[in-house]
């Protein structure tokens, strides 16, 4: 029980005594704006300040979490106009519909974010996350900058929007490079687009069309060129050899006996 002037301070007449205003006169509380509660004037003030002008907000000023083993489950809305800082140990955010901060939201966690529908920050959202799980994130939007520094398992992501640098495996540049550099033979399963593209490649190049057996038009042209205009040996003997234009490849090798010609080897490569 507090005593004021020797009488119990719990008595109603001692509430709101003017000497309570002396708290703002002296070395301790020097602000003339300080009342009880702070920022209140009539009719909600218990003790009026010497001078109006103080502002207070007890619900939406901000929130600072410095906790371990935090579980936020089925939270409908997290809103902070100045800053919201999460510095938490292994934790879990489940079914959070919205987390909004007008200036910054910082997550420094080793935990699980699951089922968050939206996390919105007007200027900066920074995730510095240890081994964690981001699951079923519907939307993560940041107007200015989003930086993920994670060792984590992202899964079931519906939508991720934001300017992301530097290029990673999922960037358009990397994806296009991977497509154009892929081996056609690795994507030739019957009925797939790979097979269709491979077939289209043959149709587009007549030299690759089969003339006879397995010989393409290009093969045939090489063989004929060798016989008609390539270096040759053994034309008056029993074994004849016809070479490529550079003389390094034996295109056709044949034997001749009594008016009969027998082709023993062809090499159109």
């Amino acid at each position, binding site marked *: 029980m507090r005593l004021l002037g020797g009488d119990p301070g719990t008595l109603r007449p001692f509430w709101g005594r003017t*000497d309570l205003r*002396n708290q703002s006169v*002296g070395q*301790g509380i020097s*602000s003339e704006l300080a009342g009880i509660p*702070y920022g209140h004037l009539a009719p909600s003030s218990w003790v009026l300040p010497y001078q109006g002008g103080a502002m207070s907000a007890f619900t939406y000023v901000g929130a600072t979490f410095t906790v371990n083993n935090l579980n936020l489950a089925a939270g409908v809305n997290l809103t902070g106009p100045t800053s919201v800082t999460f510095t938490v140990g292994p934790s879990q955010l489940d079914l959070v519909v919205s987390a909004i901060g007008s200036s910054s939201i910082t997550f420094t966690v080793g935990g699980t974010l699951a089922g968050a529908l939206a996390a919105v920050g007007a200027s900066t959202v920074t995730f510095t996350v240890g081994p964690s799980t981001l699951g079923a994130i519907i939307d993560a939007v940041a107007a200015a900058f989003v930086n993920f520094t994670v060792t984590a398992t992202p899964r079931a992501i519906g939508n991720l929007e934001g300017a992301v640098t530097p290029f990673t495996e999922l960037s358009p540049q990397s994806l296009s490079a991977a497509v154009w550099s892929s081996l056609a033979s690795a994507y030739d399963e019957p009925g797939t687009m790979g097979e269709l593209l491979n077939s289209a490649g043959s149709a587009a190049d007549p030299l690759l069309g089969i003339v006879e057996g397995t010989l393409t038009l290009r093969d045939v042209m090489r063989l004929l060129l060798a016989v008609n205009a390539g270096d040759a040996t053994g034309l008056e003997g029993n074994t004849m050899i016809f070479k490529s234009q550079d003389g390094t490849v034996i295109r056709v090798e044949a034997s001749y006996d009594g008016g009969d010609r027998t082709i023993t080897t062809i090499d159109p490569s």
Partner: protein
Amino acid sequence: MPFSSMDALINDITSGQYQRSDWNKITGASAYTAGRWYDFSNLGGTPVANAWAGTALAWRTCDETTGNGTQIFGLPNGGNVSPNTKHVLNVSAVTAVATGVPAQLMLVDLQGYWPGITNNSATAQTLTGTPSLRYTNGAGCRLFWVQTSAAGATAQNLSLSYSNTTPTSGRALPVTVAMTASAIVGHISHSGTAANNYGPFLPLASGDTGVSTVASVTFSAANTGTGALCLAKPLLTLPLTTASVSAERDLLNQLPSLPQVVDGACLVWLYFAGAATAASTNFYGAVEFGWG
């Protein structure tokens, strides 16, 4: 920074930025005389008695954690809290002895003292050492003489040469200050009801608001006895009106509100005997501090 509001104060003290220090003191074997001031730091109890350690005539700094270097006699007040500021929230005291009231207690921050100044001299005694003060140039700091061994019966006046807060040296007491003949130990022996008595502090020259150092002390006549010249900043007063009823000052809502206790403050009580106080009178009390 001071507290910004009651909300901030409550938040700070409930977060542990608070200390309550209970104290008790018992007066010595000699009765106190009505109208005189006495130093409680030299009395036994909690905290321990100040035995005025130090070299004669040499400045000895006092603070919360080391006292005078030998006895830690200041009231514990929570240690250094800068950049926060620390304030007295509440203060209380009580005595069960009828002659212990009416009285007044004054809490001061003892900056230090010059010990071993003899009353047995009629020439200037040069004081040494430069006080290291917790208040710039001694702003608000005041001087008082505590008798550390009983004085003889010879009447004597006290004069001294001090520096004010400018600091300007060579400042003198503006009036004749009479010491009390046969002053007992603990008596602030220039206080009392006799002619030319002043207390608890020595009067300052015109325009001066504090003392930064003292160069010399001179008595008008030689007497026996020894004393210490103390330099302290007064913080608050607490009237005791009724025996066995706790006197309390709510220093949040009553003026002066929330007097500040600076880092290192060596808090001791001075006592004004409103009535002849019997020997071995007990006093108890508590001081509550908060910082933020």
